């Protein structure tokens, strides 16, 4: 396949970016999207030009590092698939593909397609855990937990923290990310003691980090490579309201 790529280039956080056009000839349909970019980059490097910077690491859809908009969609057109697992057989010979960084106020661009997503760590920092220091645990089977609760907790816990939900949201909200953690821990007995404190602290932090508010577009769920259910947001709202009412 022969493709044309329009890629966002930006040399640093405070420089102005622009689209550059590149030819990508001889692309194999079995390549992953990132392998296609690797080939483009090696050609640029041989010619003495700076390669396109992009975050990536595990290349098996679990680390959450890869983060780009492909034709306006976070992680591209395949459902429930990260960029690294998107394969070129999804595209057609002669296609023009537009590639940009995740766009959100809370995710400043560092270079080309790389953005700073550390705001997500800071949301976890204020309450996305169970406070149990090493050595404090009772026997793992001391407390039976219904399989259905664990299965639903796992559905939410699968979040890879990639930020696609934020990039997809017209408001730039991190609601699905936050709700996934609130739901994961809120469904388990271990998460109960801190349930109210957690949801309030995490939502406050989200607001502080320049993420937008949630107005239920649902774009986040559509873009999520792990298909985190939208119902997690309902749970978050429920917990948040309950915690706020209880507090007042």
């Amino acid at each position: 396949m022969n493709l044309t790529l329009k890629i966002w280039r930006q040399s640093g956080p405070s420089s102005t970016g622009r689209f550059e056009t590149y030819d990508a000839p001889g692309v194999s349909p079995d390549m992953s999207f990132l392998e296609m970019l690797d080939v483009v980059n090696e050609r640029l490097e041989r010619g003495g030009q700076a390669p396109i910077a992009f975050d990536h690491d595990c290349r098996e859809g679990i680390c959450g590092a890869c983060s780009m908009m492909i034709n306006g969609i976070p992680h591209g057109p395949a459902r429930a698939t990260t960029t690294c697992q998107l394969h070129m057989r999804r595209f057609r010979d002669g296609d023009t593909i537009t590639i940009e960084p995740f766009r959100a106020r809370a995710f400043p661009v560092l270079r080309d397609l790389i953005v700073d997503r550390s705001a997500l760590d800071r949301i976890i920092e204020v309450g996305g855990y169970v406070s149990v220091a090493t050595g404090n645990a009772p026997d793992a089977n001391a407390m039976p937990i219904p399989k259905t609760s664990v299965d639903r907790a796992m559905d939410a816990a699968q979040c890879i923290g990639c930020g696609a939900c934020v990039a997809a949201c017209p408001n730039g909200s991190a609601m699905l990310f936050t709700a996934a953690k609130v739901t994961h821990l809120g469904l388990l007995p271990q998460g109960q003691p801190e349930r109210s404190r957690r949801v309030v602290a995490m939502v406050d932090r989200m607001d502080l980090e320049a993420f937008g508010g949630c107005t239920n577009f649902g774009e986040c769920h559509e873009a999520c490579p792990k298909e985190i259910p939208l119902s997690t947001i309902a749970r978050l709202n429920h917990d948040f309201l309950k915690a706020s009412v209880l507090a007042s």
Partner: protein
Amino acid sequence: MKLDARIPAGPLEKKWDLHRFEMKLVNPANKRKHTVIVVGSGLAGASAAASLGELGYRVRCFCFQDSPRRAHSIAAQGGINAAKNYQNDGDSVDRLFYDTIKGGDFRAREANVYRLAQVSVNIIDQCVAQGVPFAREYGGLLSNRSFGGAQVSRTFYARGQTGQQLLLGAYQALERQVAAGTVAMFPRTEMLDLVVVDGQARGIITRDLVSGKVETQLADAVVLATGGYGNVFYLSTNAKGCNVTATFRAWKRGAAFGNPCYTQIHPTCIPVSGDYQSKLTLMSESLRNDGRVWVPKASRDSRAPGEIPESERDYYLERKYPSFGNLSPRDIASRAAKEVCDEGRGVGETGLGVYLDFADAIRRLGEATIRERYGNLFEMYERITGENPYRVPMRIFPAAHYTMGGLWVDYNLMSTIPGLFVLGEANFSDHGANRLGASALMQGLADGYFIIPYTLGDYLATSRPAPVDPAHAEVRATEDAVRQRVTRLLGGDGKRTVDDFHRALGKIMWEHCGMERNADGLRRALREIPALRQEFTSDVRVVGTGEELNQSLEKAGRVADFLEFAELMCRDALHREESCGGHFRVEHQTPDGEAQRDDERFAYVAAWEYAGEGREPVLHKEKLVFENVHLATRSYK
């Protein structure tokens, strides 16, 4: 250099308890006066940083990823072992200990492995308390499955994402300490050298991967939890960023490197599809609980798998190893796959693949059950290959996966440099010559949650490190050396890319130091690697500067270290004239093609000491003493 493993006296099952009592403690009020550097934020690093922070130490934790949650432990799929015996199927600490020693082909230290088995049960308790959503039965109790090399069900799992869930547990504990102010986290920061002052590890030199700034970080002790070096093969199941730099640089500063030739080739990975391939994707070993491995009986049989009748299929693992069958350990299953492919019976376009077939399991259990157990793995397979494994058998082939070798450590997980501790895959300690499935997660968390918090305290209490002057000549010299290395990598106007060299190195290593090794091949590799390194120096092209986010420069530094380190691996493989676990020397095999150990000559840990530029490294031997297990021929037949 003198190797002292510091194995405590007393009976095996009492050693750790006695040692914990004998170790010195740091008073709670004094802990906050000690700064500890932790490099790496995977299972070992994150659990260590969090636990040390909880105790009150001032921890500074570094990772090259943009968030500690992305360390490569996240990609571990299948599970974590623990001797809970919840299934009442005969498991015990002793059995997990024995399975691990035997699985490692009797090349690991008894005392370390026994302690690992002991604390395995605490790990599961800790993780459940953190909210790790392990799979459960309808009664609400924890579920288990089996992994290779064991005849009991002792593996705990969270769908096919066990590593992810365990790492998120440790990451969340880490973030809690960041909020508490005990841990300072430095993401997108890479360690490029170790600072040794007066013979003690006192800090690291880092490069900020966004600004390019090179800085010195000083501390009272340094903990390396930087993972393995599987990417020396270029194609591996490791993440693209995994590298040997931290441990290799520590080696050059005086830390002995243990058994560098022990590498694990995982039998179930998706086969290579083309030259552009950038990594290999693992399919969890847990699939072998229900999948059956086979190839056609006839060579070059090009029929579709469905058209090959039962009588013309060779379920070779079940045939050769009837008692373990498809759950034979990784080294054995990998070599068996290579053997059938060498016979021309491999499947797929390249002939480098075998079938992993779920048709029987689907008939027996129904598609819904299989989907529940492995759904996400099946989806991943289909995304990558475009084939539906519910309909056609998966095609799999071995790939480099894990490195049992690593920096040599004593019982306290301290290297030969006082004050330098090494955890997880980065050390050599627990898996001998072959690691069993679901034991890497166990070891990483054992080291981080339950061992380093004790042994590090003992070191600080007994050695009482004095403050280091940042202007100390050793500190300045180390920082200058890093700056010079960075400058040397830049500025060339060569023609070849860094990846080009990395692929060339990977090819040499896979060919001569991979699944099978022999003296001629290893000698050839030892000639080819220095030549390639020479070309790298003169012909590599690294675009850009050091004062910016420069991914080519990051890669160049890592590949430059791999180009030196590869030689150490080959040297170790050449000297070990026996076969054991993942180290298979063609010259040393039994008549039926199994690994032939030579306990008389090689029942030791090979610990290599750096002897200076252009000098051959010096071999030191730690004799392995087996007081509790009988050295047997490892058989899974």
